[in-house]
């Protein structure tokens, strides 16, 4: 059977499973809908958190990204795992003791202010929407690459599935589908990794394999060999990277703190019964996440080595079949600058911009002298002849390593599981922000539980529509903005929550001023370099050498400083608020 039939079978089976779970776990009350009745077993919650957390980007793009960044890829590896230590130690147990439904709930009650609550709602909605649009796009991409379905139709199918279980089951439905999705995605990620690690190094465990010797009798370590290949081609050594130390530092910190401030992650720890469950649940979540996150850098090394060895200084006509298949998706392009039929891979761009395939009047792809797919782009300066999209490293990995067809199909099902599970978690945050924090807490406080549940469903449905719209018509800046969601979360929520727990005398004026200052500072820096003046987006223009990806760390410090300074001017919070802070510090 070929990859496409396998993909239909696996994707169909997993979708049927998700729908089955959704029907089984319908929500009956707002407590079910918001926090799954707070009855979730900590191990189950850990697994669901891992699926919630690991998005299409973690699954499809991260290993590829790292394979092009080398050492610098550590910003994602440490940044997206280290935040869980902060969550376990500084946030989850206390917020569980607080025991309400949402992050804006905590902010609003702790700072005894509906204005603070509304700012938190706005932050939560901005962060969640920028993130969810990327997930929907991911669903569409997987469909179009593997099933040759139009991207837009792929987005619509994804919307329908998420709609079904998020609107029907709320947090309860999402939790149990996420458990299934975690199993699918981790299996799909690990199987090719085992195969490739064994092929290259003789050791099937990727975490050990990429520190072992290469399986070719040379006795050379794999990383040593990759460093050598890199140096020969003129790249920086794989294990040393190119970013400045302070930028790596700041980006890692922004991602860690942002992780701990993302509402869809925090809210998962409201779903377990006890404080001590919340603590251990974060530990389980990180184990499940670490399985993927310690494998990804190994896959990056395997894929990079395989790729360089396959293509560099080889004639195009000797390329394996996958080369021309992936050329047709415009993720891989070769331009023969010196017209000798041999592929040269070197640092620098191969072409101007992203490849646009050249097609004839019938819409067929035009192939050149050696059979290569032609593109309309101008060749770029410099010797490099090969354009490789980073996403290809995971998507094409099974084919590059010559693995059976079902493994490639598994990657498609895994990518969909990763995208759908994250999208559902984010949509829930948006819907609860509207139905609970705006309607129940502010607009119509006497609303019945049944009516509130109704509103929760309506807003979930609305959020799915909006997310789908952005998936089909992605604003040009989405890709730029997703990484920024972390900076915004770091600069807005994190300090307000931490001060709320650890500094009893923090008052509402300080917290509000801090959140606004942190948010505006971070937004302004990002908009300036990413949207308004991208031509200035280079290290010599950045403040202290900090890129827009890392600026959230500074934003967090601004938030802290402003909170503390403004807080000093105004009176202490009321007695009952101080008592509440006191009470969340003890499990009983």
């Amino acid at each position, binding site marked *: 059977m070929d990859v496409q039939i396998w993909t239909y079978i696996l994707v169909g089976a997993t979708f049927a499973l998700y729908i089955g779970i959704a029907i089984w776990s319908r929500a009956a009350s707002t407590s079910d809908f918001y926090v799954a009745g707070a009855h979730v077993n900590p191990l189950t919650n850990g697994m669901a958190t891992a699926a919630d957390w690991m998005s299409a980007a973690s699954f499809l793009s991260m290993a590829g990204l790292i394979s092009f960044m080398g050492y610098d890829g*550590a910003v994602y590896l440490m940044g997206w795992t280290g935040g869980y*230590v902060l969550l376990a130690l500084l946030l989850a147990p206390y917020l569980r003791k607080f025991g309400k439904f949402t992050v804006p709930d905590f902010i609003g009650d702790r700072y005894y202010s509906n204005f603070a609550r509304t700012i938190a709602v706005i932050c939560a909605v901005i962060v969640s929407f920028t993130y969810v649009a990327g997930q929907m796009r991911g669903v569409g991409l997987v469909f179009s690459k593997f099933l040759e379905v139009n991207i837009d139709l792929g987005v619509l199918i994804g919307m329908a599935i998420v709609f079904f279980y998020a609107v029907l089951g709320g947090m309860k439905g999402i939790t149990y589908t996420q458990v299934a999705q975690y199993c699918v995605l981790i299996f799909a990620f690990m199987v090719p990794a085992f195969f490739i690690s064994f092929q290259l190094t003789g050791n099937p465990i990727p975490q050990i394999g990429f520190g*072992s010797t290469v399986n070719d009798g040379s006795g050379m370590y794999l990383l040593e060999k990759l460093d050598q290949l890199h140096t020969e081609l003129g790249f920086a050594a794989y294990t040393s990277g190119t970013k400045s130390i302070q930028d790596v530092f700041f980006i890692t910190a922004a991602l860690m703190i942002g992780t701990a401030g993302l509402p869809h992650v925090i809210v998962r720890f409201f779903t377990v019964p*006890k404080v001590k469950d919340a603590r251990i649940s974060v530990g389980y979540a990180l184990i499940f996440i670490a399985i993927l996150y310690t494998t990804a850098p190994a896959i990056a090394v395997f894929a990079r080595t395989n790729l360089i060895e396959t293509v560099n200084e080889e004639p195009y006509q000797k390329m394996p079949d996958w080369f021309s298949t992936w050329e047709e998706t415009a993720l891989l392009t070769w331009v023969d600058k010196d017209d000798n039929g041999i592929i040269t891979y070197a640092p620098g761009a191969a072409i101007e911009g992203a490849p646009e395939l050249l097609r004839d009047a019938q819409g067929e792809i035009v192939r050149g002298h050696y059979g290569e797919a032609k593109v309309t782009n101008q060749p770029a300066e410099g010797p490099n002849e090969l354009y490789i999209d980073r996403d290809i490293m995971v998507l094409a990995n099974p084919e590059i390593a010559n693995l059976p067809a079902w493994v490639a199909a598994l990657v498609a099902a895994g990518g969909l599981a990763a995208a759908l599970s994250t999208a559902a978690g984010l949509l829930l945050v948006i819907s609860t922000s509207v139905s609970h924090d705006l309607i129940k807490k502010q607009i119509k406080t006497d609303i019945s539980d049944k009516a509130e549940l109704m509103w929760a469903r309506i807003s979930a449905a609305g959020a799915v529509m909006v997310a789908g719209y952005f998936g089909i018509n992605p604003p040009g800046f989405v890709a730029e903005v997703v990484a920024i969601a972390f900076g915004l979360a770091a600069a807005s929520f994190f300090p307000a929550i931490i001060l709320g727990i650890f500094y009893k005398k923090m008052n509402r004026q300080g917290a509000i001023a801090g959140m606004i200052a942190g948010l505006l500072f971070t937004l302004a820096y990002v908009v300036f370099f990413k949207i308004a003046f991208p031509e200035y987006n280079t290290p010599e223009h950045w403040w202290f050498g900090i890129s827009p990806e890392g600026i959230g760390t500074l934003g967090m410090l601004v938030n802290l400083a402003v909170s503390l300074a403004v807080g000093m001017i105004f009176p202490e919070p009321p007695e009952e608020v101080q008592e509440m802070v006191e009470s969340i510090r003890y*499990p009983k």
Partner: protein
Amino acid sequence: MTKRDLKGYWRKNLQYLGILLTIWFTVSYVCGILLAPWLNTFTMGGFKLGFWFAQQGSIYTFVILIFVYVYLMNKLDRQFKVQED
């Protein structure tokens, strides 16, 4: 539970946080980033040490830190009789 006891519980908790977060900072930011170039002059199997901390070792340490914290806090909860049952 008196107010003074609770103060003792909280102080102990903050102490644990201080120690665990120092380790957290050391493995990731110090070994994985600031000292990585120097640590790269040592190797462990096929890994340069700084590279290993940045892409593997820090993640393993994060997991261990959380479980140590869970263990310590569960013990502390029982000691001060604030555990939920």
